[in-house]
């Protein structure tokens, strides 16, 4: 008994010894942003490439603007449930005046918090409801990543051309494979733009799409890629967050167009190029709005010009000769508005070109198509709301399954 007490006392003493150890470093940061405190709510932690992309963008932005770490609070592992609302409230309690969230399912809980705290700005990436909620302090953002995928698709098409020219495949065997997460507008818009990019340089290309039903499932993504390869696909791209598809491609020696960032270090022989969204321009924009006391746009879409859409360096080892020049030209044309990705002259549905399409822009439980999105000969993607809305299944793309 006495021994135990002695032990406890010793422990306590050790505790009290170190008690007066450290204090919070009180970095000053830049004078201009001294009233800004930023919060970021993430679904997972840095282990997920998706969340890492947001976390890095936030850190870069704050560093650049001179907002010290003590005024940048990142909370990770927040479920798409009441936990998000609690996290948002807690960030308000900590004195944040602008709060970001990174996952689609956070949206409603951010809106709930936005209604409760009208003086705090709530910015939600990938959401769809800001333009219908009509709250002055709730905003959506996305990037025109379909342009990035289009440009990456051009690189894929050039690779196919090279294979055809070298006699490795015949023109009718130019089949690409695509591993998608869900059969959902964001993914459909992504693979269609990728396909149209490839088709712009390789007219005979077709594509097969396999869905995994998860944003992050390494095994499922790997298996989906393997299935596509065995079904005759000679080039693979993906819209999911793990290394499953790229590694399957490297193993099979099949060229891969990646997403979320370069995978060249793991796939030196097969990685061609990757597109990704850089959230830093949006973060900078929104934080500056708060600093200058200006309204943040309800929907914000950044493209190549803003730096929101980025292409990685092209891997010369795997890409076809001349890819860089061609892709650079395409990006310049996209920036200048000379290329419209979803131009109705480039694709058909059930054999005929579309002249009209009503999309479900205002989310509702009945999925009511409410907005005419084809005008002036192209589908106006990310114009009526920031999140992608292109959900047409066009000719030339075969869905092997669907997952919701």
């Amino acid at each position, binding site marked *: 008994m006495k021994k135990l007490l002695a032990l406890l006392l010793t422990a306590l003493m050790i505790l009290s010894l170190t008690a007066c150890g*450290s204090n919070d470093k009180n970095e000053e940061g830049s004078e201009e942003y001294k009233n800004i405190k930023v919060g970021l709510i993430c679904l997972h932690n840095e282990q997920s490439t998706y969340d890492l992309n947001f976390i890095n963008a936030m850190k870069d932005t704050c560093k650049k603007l001179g907002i010290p770490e003590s005024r940048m609070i990142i909370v990770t592992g927040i479920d798409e449930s009441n936990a998000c609302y609690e996290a948002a409230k807690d960030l308000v309690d900590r004195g944040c005046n602008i709060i970001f969230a990174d996952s689609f399912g956070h949206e*409603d809980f951010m809106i709930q918090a936005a209604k409760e705290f009208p003086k705090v700005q709530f910015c939600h990436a990938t959401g769809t409801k800001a333009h219908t909620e009509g709250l002055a302090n709730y905003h959506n953002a996305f990037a025109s990543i379909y342009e990035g995928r289009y440009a990456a698709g051009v690189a894929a098409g050039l690779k196919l051309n090279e294979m055809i020219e070298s006699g490795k495949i015949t023109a009718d065997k130019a089949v690409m494979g695509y591993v998608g997460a*869900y059969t959902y507008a964001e993914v459909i818009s992504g693979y269609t733009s990728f396909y149209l990019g490839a088709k712009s340089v390789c007219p005979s290309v077709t594509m097969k799409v396999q869905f995994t039903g998860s944003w992050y499932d390494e095994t499922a993504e790997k298996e989906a890629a393997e299935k596509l390869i065995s079904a005759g696909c000679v080039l693979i791209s993906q819209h999911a967050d793990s290394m499953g598809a790229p590694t399957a491609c490297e193993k099979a020696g099949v060229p891969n167009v990646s997403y979320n960032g370069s995978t060249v270090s793991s796939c030196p022989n097969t990685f061609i190029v990757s597109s990704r969204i850089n959230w830093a321009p949006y973060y900078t924009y929104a934080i500056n709005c708060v600093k200058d006391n200006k309204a943040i746009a309800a929907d914000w879409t950044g493209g190549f010009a803003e730096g929101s859409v980025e292409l990685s360096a092209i891997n010369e080892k795997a890409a076809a000769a001349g890819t860089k020049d061609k892709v650079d030209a395409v990006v310049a044309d996209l920036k200048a508005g000379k290329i419209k990705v979803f131009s109705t002259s480039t694709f058909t549905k059930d054999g005929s070109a579309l002249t009209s399409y009503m999309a479900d822009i205002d989310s509702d439980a009945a999925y009511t198509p409410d907005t005419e999105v084809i005008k002036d000969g192209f589908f106006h993607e990310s114009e009526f709301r920031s999140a992608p809305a292109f959900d047409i299944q066009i000719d030339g793309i075969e869905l092997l399954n669907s997952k919701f």
Partner: protein
Amino acid sequence: MTDEKKHKHVREPLIHLAKRDNLPRSKALLIRTIAIALGILITCVFGFLIIGWSPSRIVHAMLDGTFGTENRRWDLFEKTAILLCISLAVTPAFRMRFWNIGAEGQTLIACLTSAACMIKLGDKLPNPVLLLVMLVLSITAGMIWALIPAIFKAFWNTNETLFTLMMNYVATQITSYFIYIWSVPKGSGHIGIINPTTHSGWLVSIGDYPYLLNILVTIVMTITSYIYLNHCKHGYEISVVGESEKTARYIGINVKAVILRTMCISGAICGLAGFLIVSGADHTVITGSVGGLGFTAIMVSWLAKFNPLAMSFFAFMIAFLGKGAKEITTLSGLDSSFADIVTGFVIFCIIGCEFFINYKIKMRRKEAKHE
């Protein structure tokens, strides 16, 4: 050579264990308190090694993260309440030695039922009626989910552990199917907050405190469970069936009926928990609505030795550790799994200390060295 002489050469080991007969309660409590303190000490050392924080800073961050603001306090007690409610649910079955590890699924299916009522009946029934319907149907859903394995156990003696575990997966799959059917926008896999403007099917908040009702219901359930298990004939029957089915049969207890009845109660309380989660807090359903609490509850129930009052302490402790450690991860930029590690340390110490409660460590006596 005599046996005696041989015996002298057998060396007494340095340490040997002896079973303790009956440790006084106060001493057992002391050992447990030391275990928790030790767990926190390990946490502090671990935290110091990883992020270089002083123990006082770690403890301060944990306290601040849980009690620092009014919102945090409410969140802490709401988390405790839901965990406690599910722990109460698994307990009657455990007392009967029916290893129900299906609380996760039983609660989730009730969450789905509540959400379904909110979606389908939200604009058809007045709120008090809707809430009543939700409550009754959720409890029924939880009950059915528990009753299916119970029937198989009672009549065909199937393995309830595997059965209840598999029922969890069935519940998850059914939930994800309906989430797809009801997802907005189409294909997104998210239902989102249900009835955000009309608040139909949202549990009414008492005063300004939205979680107060959840907490009060759980307190009532805790006391009721305690009385039911310790001072009712049913509770006694459960204990007897748990001790020995043959004895139970011998003294005229209908074992099958007790199994079915007890699992009904387990499932019903899970159903109630599911209702509280959806109606009282989340207002939506996702496959992770229960978020593993169905399994954590098993631990709470065991740590408390199936005593509902002790369970409220352990549920609070686990909620506290989780939330407190999360604060450290937020402030230090550590990986969010730090919270799990910390909880693991403390639980490990608590479970480990049971050894010292059950056994005495005896050192070799010095006299033994003398011839």
